């Protein structure tokens, strides 16, 4: 009878501690993203809803209905999950090795290693933040607001009122195609719930914040001077994103590690050259 190989927890951990695995996964992810280009180009309506309905709902609907175009995304998720576990295992094991005074290198080298691990930890935080954002986030999209009328936002305690619209018209000649158009609208909104109310301005790239909800301007009208349809309205998206703080923390940790790395790397390199 043939002996069956049993995968022990130790050997499984060994696989996840391998940097070769990280390199293979990164190359596979690069390949997946190259393939993704062909699937995404011209099919934005298939992928755009992911931002509105969340990851699970998207996978159950658009994701499985057009598998020939969305398969890359499932592959990407699988590789990203493996990479996150691999990065975490490698970082923890190397940090433990650094903690051991017998195997610890000299101070500058230790700081250098810590900076690299900071980048790894930042990456794991960013991936965890994305996961939280796409799975636990709440989105209410396409909320239309008309001046002077208060609207209740479904599935939230919020009530919103469009107070005023500042629509400065571009009058220059440099941006010919935008002559007579509004480029930077400022929309004043009053938000309220049971515990209070607040008035704030929103615009493109400047969302408004109220009780953990963020309000994003999607559309507005009239967007052009002398437009045929001169009705005034705005369309906004409302989001509650529990992952946002996690991936912003990840970005800060990663950038700090990278900056330290870039400062220290030339010095260490010069020292090594000098020693040679």
């Amino acid at each position: 009878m043939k002996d069956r190989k049993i995968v022990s927890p130790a050997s499984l951990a060994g696989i996840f501690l391998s940097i070769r695995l990280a390199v293979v996964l990164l190359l596979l992810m690069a390949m997946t993203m190259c393939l993704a280009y062909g699937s995404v180009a011209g099919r934005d309506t298939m992928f755009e809803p992911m931002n509105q309905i969340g990851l699970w709902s998207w996978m159950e609907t658009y994701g499985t209905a057009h598998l020939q175009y969305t398969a890359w995304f499932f592959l990407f998720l699988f590789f990203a999950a493996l990479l996150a576990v691999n990065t975490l295992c490698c970082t923890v094991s190397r940090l433990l090795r650094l903690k051991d005074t017998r195997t610890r290198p000299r101070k500058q080298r230790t700081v250098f290693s810590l900076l690299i691990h900071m980048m790894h930890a930042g990456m794991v935080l960013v991936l965890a933040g994305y996961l939280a954002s796409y799975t636990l986030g709440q989105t209410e999209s396409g909320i239309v607001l008309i001046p002077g009328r208060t609207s209740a936002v479904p599935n939230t305690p919020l009530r919103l009122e469009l107070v005023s619209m500042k629509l400065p018209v571009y009058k220059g000649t440099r941006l010919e195609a935008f002559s007579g158009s509004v480029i930077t609208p400022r929309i004043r909104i009053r938000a309220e719930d049971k515990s209070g109310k607040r008035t704030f301005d929103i615009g493109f790239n400047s969302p408004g914040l109220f009780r953990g909800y963020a309000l994003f301007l999607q559309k507005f009208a009239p967007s052009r001077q002398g437009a045929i349809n001169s009705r005034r309205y705005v369309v906004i998206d409302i989001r509650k994103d529990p992952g946002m703080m996690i991936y912003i923390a990840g970005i800060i940790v990663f950038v700090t590690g990278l900056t330290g790395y870039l400062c220290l790397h030339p010095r260490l390199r010069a020292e090594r050259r000098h020693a040679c």
Partner: protein
Amino acid sequence: MTNGHILLLCSIAGFGSGLILEQMNQKQSLVLAAKAAGFAACSAGFLLRYYHAFPMLPMYIALHGTTCILGGIWLWKGPGNDTERFLLPAVILLLCTVQFLFPKDFYLPFRRSATLWAHAFLLASMAARAMFIVSGIEAAGVIRAGNSLQDSRWAYTYAIYGFSWLTISIFCGEIWSLTGWGTPVIWHDPGITCLMAMWFYWVAVLHMHYTGTWAARLQPISMAAGGLLVIVLSCVSDTGPFRGFLQQVAGS
């Protein structure tokens, strides 16, 4: 033919003559003048497109900007080894020609791109692309000379700076996406998938180098392939339908 296309044609002429003169071992001052003319025309074309879109972001301009930065590096570095002397200007010339024959400069900018994060995202990604391409060219020189990567001072320096710029670009894009759409990634933009492919590939290459994974001879090959990947992905995402040379000129 628009002013931008005329300037692109001038940059092709400048960079092309620089390449020919350098290959013919002509006077350095002559080569430098040709290079400088190509660089000036290329940069003027880039600034012109930016001028007509600012404060919004000009669409599909990353390839143009990358070519300008490559032109600047060629001008600054001077003649390197034989491979660099040919490959760097040849790549610059190729990118200029591709942009001229397959223009994608007819899209209007969009309102949501009028933010500092969008500009930082674009400019950092252009710097990253240029550095990866130069790193790939340096690695090709190493392969041709039969040396190891340790002999090349620049290959890894450019790779590290390329990685840093691309990371900054991706994070700036993430913040732009967060403030503009409320999500950290815009999955329906094919350009983003290209940037992510580059990032993952070069992170793999840097891991290969720093951890000594796989044979040493594979490292310059992977870097040269990375340079090629960046060129292909940049061309794929930033070029439009073919417009022949005559069609372009006749359009004037």
